[in-house]
Structure formats: structure tokens, C-alpha cells
């Protein structure tokens, strides 16, 4: 693998992430009734704990959704929110007064699954369109755990196939510049040669 190829892949995935962020931002803004800005700070290789910093560190509790990608390539999509943010999102989505949802009940879980669906699908569709691939996101599984436990599990799954781990981290910020969420897209190792080829 040459440095040029690596740089091309990073540039290509960053472009996909920006496109996905734009689409997801539009979907989220409509859903939440307020402007949601999504930044794509970096496309990183082989990172783990760094991904958790944005949501509060190693033991930060997060609530969110996990999806897998199937089709021409396979991979993983994780959408994390600090728990208080996730519950606030659930209130917004359900048209409830802020602070109504205080725990991850059935309604909140359903709302977070829908969030995962909207944001995850936006990124998967951006990837499919840009790379001319046929991709299918799975239905979202709602997760509620320590961020690092979730990230390391995906990291391990990818490493069992051998090769590199590429994680695209995308941080969501609200109008006040506060971190509202984190999206991680991680193609499986066997998908990387195809992505490198398409990016070249």
C-alpha cells in the first residue's frame, strides 16, 4: 500500500463523510426542528480511544445505535450520544417538553433507533452514491453502554479479518458548539482494497 493510495483513500472517505454529514444534518434538522451542524474533523486509521474523547472519555456512557453495512462492501456504523443528549433528542423527536424523558424507556429507545436509521442511512447512502456501490444498512440496534466497550468490540471484529482498521469519526455540534453526538463509520478490512481501488 503506497502513501499516495492511503492519502487518496483518506481524501475520498473524508469527502464521503462531508456529503453524509450534509445529508444527515438536513434530516436531523427537519426532525428536531432546529439547525443541526455536523463537522467532519478527521478520517483516522486504527484509532480507538480517540473516538471516545468526543463523548466524554474512556468510561463515558453513551446511548445510540449500531448498524452494519451489507452489499458490495461490508462495515459498521455507530452513532453515539452522551446519555443526557440522547434523552433530550428523544424529547425533541417525540414533541415532548425538554426533560420529560429521564430514562431509556421504550419510547426513547424507539426514537434513538429512528435517529440511527436516519443518520446511519445518510452516510451509507453517501458512500454508495460516491463510490457507485450497492449498499444496504441493517436495521439499527440501540446500544446503551460505555463508549470504549462499543468501539473496541467493532475494532476487534474488523481485526479478526486481518488488515487495517479505518474509522471515520464525525462529530455533531449544536448551535452552541456543544458536542451533540459522534458517528463512526468503519469499513471491514476486506472492503478496504475495493475502497482504495475506487478512490484511486
Amino acid at each position: 500500500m503506497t502513501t499516495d493510495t492511503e492519502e487518496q483513500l483518506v481524501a475520498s472517505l473524508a469527502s464521503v463523510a462531508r456529503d453524509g454529514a450534509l445529508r444527515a444534518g438536513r434530516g436531523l434538522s427537519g426532525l428536531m426542528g432546529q439547525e443541526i451542524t455536523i463537522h467532519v474533523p478527521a478520517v483516522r486509521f486504527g484509532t480507538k480511544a480517540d473516538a471516545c474523547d468526543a463523548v466524554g472519555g474512556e468510561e463515558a456512557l453513551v446511548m445510540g445505535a449500531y448498524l452494519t453495512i451489507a452489499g458490495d462492501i461490508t462495515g459498521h456504523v455507530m452513532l453515539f450520544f452522551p446519555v443526557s443528549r440522547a434523552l433530550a433528542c428523544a424529547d425533541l423527536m417525540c414533541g415532548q417538553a425538554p426533560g420529560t424523558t429521564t430514562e431509556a424507556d421504550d419510547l426513547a429507545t424507539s426514537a434513538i433507533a429512528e435517529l440511527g436509521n436516519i443518520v446511519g442511512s445518510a452516510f451509507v447512502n453517501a458512500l454508495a452514491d460516491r463510490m457507485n456501490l450497492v449498499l444496504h444498512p441493517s436495521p439499527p440496534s440501540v446500544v446503551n453502554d460505555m463508549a470504549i466497550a462499543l468501539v473496541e468490540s467493532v475494532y476487534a471484529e474488523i481485526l479478526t479479518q486481518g488488515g487495517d482498521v479505518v474509522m471515520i469519526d464525525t462529530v455533531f455540534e449544536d448551535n452552541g458548539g456543544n458536542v451533540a453526538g459522534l458517528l463512526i463509520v468503519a469499513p471491514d478490512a476486506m472492503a478496504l482494497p475495493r475502497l482504495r481501488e475506487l478512490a484511486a
Partner: protein
Amino acid sequence: MTSPPSEQRRISVGIGQIAVSRDSHEVLVAYGLGSCIGVSAHDPESGVCGLVHVLLPASDGKVPQSSEPARFADTGVDVLLREMAAVGATSRRIVVKLAGGAAVLGPGNAEKFKIGERNAEAVKERLKRHGLRPAREDLGGTRGRTLELHVGTGKTFVRMAASPASEL
């Protein structure tokens, strides 16, 4: 568990990392074990403690990267016992406790991703080769865990998200 005294130092043992200590002020911690396994090891006579944070079941002959010396169960257990012996531990006295090996990516994916289960089996198998078996274990399930080993007492604690720690 009561909060550790302020003079205690928490040493974070990240993914694929190992820590060995006989400093009674240190607490070795593996944060957020998902499918990974935390192996806590304590030799009560020498006071030597060790903690390893295993990511994958088998090295299959691959040499672990220097940045993650304990990435694999087989080589990770070997390195742990070797480093503990180097500072005075005796293998047959070592008390081993395990935590982790969960399927945290949602119940629907538990059947698909069995890496946690495979990790647990691989760690036990490697320990067996060294004549060791876990004295206690908290493995499997669908929740992440944090494992900590207090070097001063040799006690091991496990906690899940937003739950109090309990001694293993």
C-alpha cells in the same frame, strides 16, 4: 466498594496493553471491556500483580505489534506470566480472575459476533497450558465492564455502566 484513598494511582491498561506492579499505591484498571477480556493476576506471597487487556483470541503465529503486546489471548497470557515472574511472582501461586467477553452491539448481533466468547475460551485455554485456571470470572452477557486490580490488597473489582463495583 469505598472510593480509593487519594494517594492511590490508577494505571489505565488499554486495549492490547499489559501492566505489572508491586506498588501498593497502584490500581490497575481496564476500562470498558466489551468483547475484550481483562485478565487479573495476583501472587499473594510476592505481592506482584498483573493485568492484561486482551483483544483477540489467537495470534496464529503473528508477532504482536510493540504498541499492543497483549493484543492476542495466547501471547498476552504468556507475556503477563513472564513479566510477573521477572519481578518475583511464582506461576503456581498466581490467582487469576477474568472479566469481559460480552456481546455489546445489541442482542440481534450477539449470535453473529462471537468474538467475546472466543476470547474467553482462548484465554482459559492458554491459562490451562500454564497449569492455571480462573479462580473467579464474570464473562459474557451484553454489557461492557470495567475491571480493576488493587495492588495493595490483590483484590479485583468489576463494574458495569452506571453500576457500583463489586468484588470478583
